């Protein structure tokens, strides 16, 4: 499995994904810094808290693109047939892709929150409580978004097309995005990660959903789409 994960990482060399991941790290930081500079009434943490959805959304959008690309390209580059005649199960190959996507997600989410903390420290000085808040938010964000990775893989396997699958996922995400500001936003499972992070920062809007409830819903979603992805991966013509 380690070898397969290494191979998946090797396959993304010289693609547009590498600069895109870099942009996904820089984008939110730049945005928060600019807002903080304009909105001098709020503390840096308050700016992060009020814009936490954007901080998470950009890296997640990049993860969707990343995930759709590494799955769908096997069909586009006519490699799927050759993967199927390798002496490895399709489930193993698919699982290695899921792990790589999760690794990328964790990398971008955790680094984003750590960088935000570092900027916070530079602007307002070191505070252990704030550090814990950022780390907590980063971990919750990474863990909860990871539950949506099987959905990304499932849609990509179904559509077998990079643009098509990324479009569907991101447009559903963005079109339902305004619900995140409503107390009933939790009915959309793909908005739960951002809602739970906002809750961890102390938002009182989302009283209707608990951390446990949200986590259970996400684990359920992850399980369902993982099973569906296995079905598609194993399916022969």
């Amino acid at each position: 499995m380690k070898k397969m994960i290494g191979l998946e990482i090797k396959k993304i060399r010289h693609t547009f994904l590498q600069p895109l991941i870099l942009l996904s790290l820089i984008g939110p930081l730049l945005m928060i810094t600019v807002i903080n500079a304009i909105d001098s009434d709020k503390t840096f943490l308050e700016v992060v808290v009020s814009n936490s959805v954007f901080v998470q959304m950009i890296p997640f959008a990049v993860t969707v693109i990343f995930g759709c690309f590494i799955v769908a390209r096997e069909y586009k580059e006519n490699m799927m047939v050759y993967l199927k005649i390798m002496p490895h199960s399709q489930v193993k190959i698919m699982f290695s892709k899921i792990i790589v996507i999760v690794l990328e997600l964790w990398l971008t989410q955790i680094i984003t929150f750590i960088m935000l903390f570092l900027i916070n420290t530079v602007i307002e000085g070191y505070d252990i409580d704030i550090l814990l808040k950022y780390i907590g938010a980063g971990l919750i964000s990474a863990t909860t978004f990871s539950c949506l990775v099987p959905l990304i893989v499932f849609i990509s396997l179904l559509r077998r097309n990079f643009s098509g699958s990324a479009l569907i996922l991101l447009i559903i995400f963005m079109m339902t995005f305004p619900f995140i500001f409503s107390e009933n936003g939790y009915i959309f499972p793909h908005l739960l990660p951002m809602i739970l992070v906002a809750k961890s920062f102390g938002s009182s809007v989302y009283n209707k959903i608990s951390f446990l409830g949200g986590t259970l819903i996400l684990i359920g979603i992850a399980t369902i789409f993982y099973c569906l992805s296995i079905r598609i991966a194993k399916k022969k013509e």
Partner: protein
Amino acid sequence: MQDIIRTAGLTKAYKGVPVVSDVDLNVKKGEIYGFIGRNGAGKTTTIRMILNLTKPTSGHVELFGETTTDKNMYNNLRKIGAIIESPGFYMNLSARENLDIQRLMMDASDKASIDRVLATVGLSEEANKRVSKYSLGMRQRLGIARALLHKPELLLLDEPTNGLDPQGVVEIRELLLSIAAEGTTILVSSHILSEVEKIVTRIGILNKGKLLEELSKDNFQTKCKQTTVYKVNSVEKAATLIKQYLSIDDLSILGDTISFSSIEQVGNAKLNKILIDNDIEIIESKIIRSSLEDYFLEITGA
């Protein structure tokens, strides 16, 4: 000799429409098996069923003496190299990197094998170039290199000379002959019957999903028609003599040319002597043997 590939009643139907019907294929160890058929005959579908990529509607496949199941297929795949339809690659990676991925996926530890196969197909100088910059012919060669990387016991090649220049076609032909000489079994599917004819030891003819015939090269050559053509100064006299001395009634006369077909080799020396002894001038004589293409067209009713 052991059957490396054996299919029994292999059938595939899509929405009730059969694309492969009841195919009983036998490929023996060490053979070069030419799998020929028209476009849409079902060759690629059959190869896909052999590789367990497509589930047969009925029938089964045996590889290396065992009925293939999802479980034992992984062991079999380590012994198989294949090109199916057009070879696919990771375009953003170089040839060497693509082969390295293949080497790792096939659990082949020998890194030197990459240079070996690249040299075999003539891509050593372009090894570090990205595949996106390769021409069609270069990608085809790389596909062959990838199939050979882990020294497979069985090679399944679907149109291996597609896109290759004439020199490339000759090189691949010689390569396949040398691989077969080392004991590798090869199943090659192709439209270029003149090329298939030069390398195969057995032929399977597929038409509209049905395996019409399976015959060895010797049987094929025996079955192939042979036409003897004589250009003489006195056609009627020559025709009478041929009928009288060789008991051949089915003659074709066109102008000053007389031709007749026969399954067995006609004793040309004997006929020449008869004609000369009867004062007939032989302007030209030749034997035309029908090719695989002619035989194929005849048997498929084209």
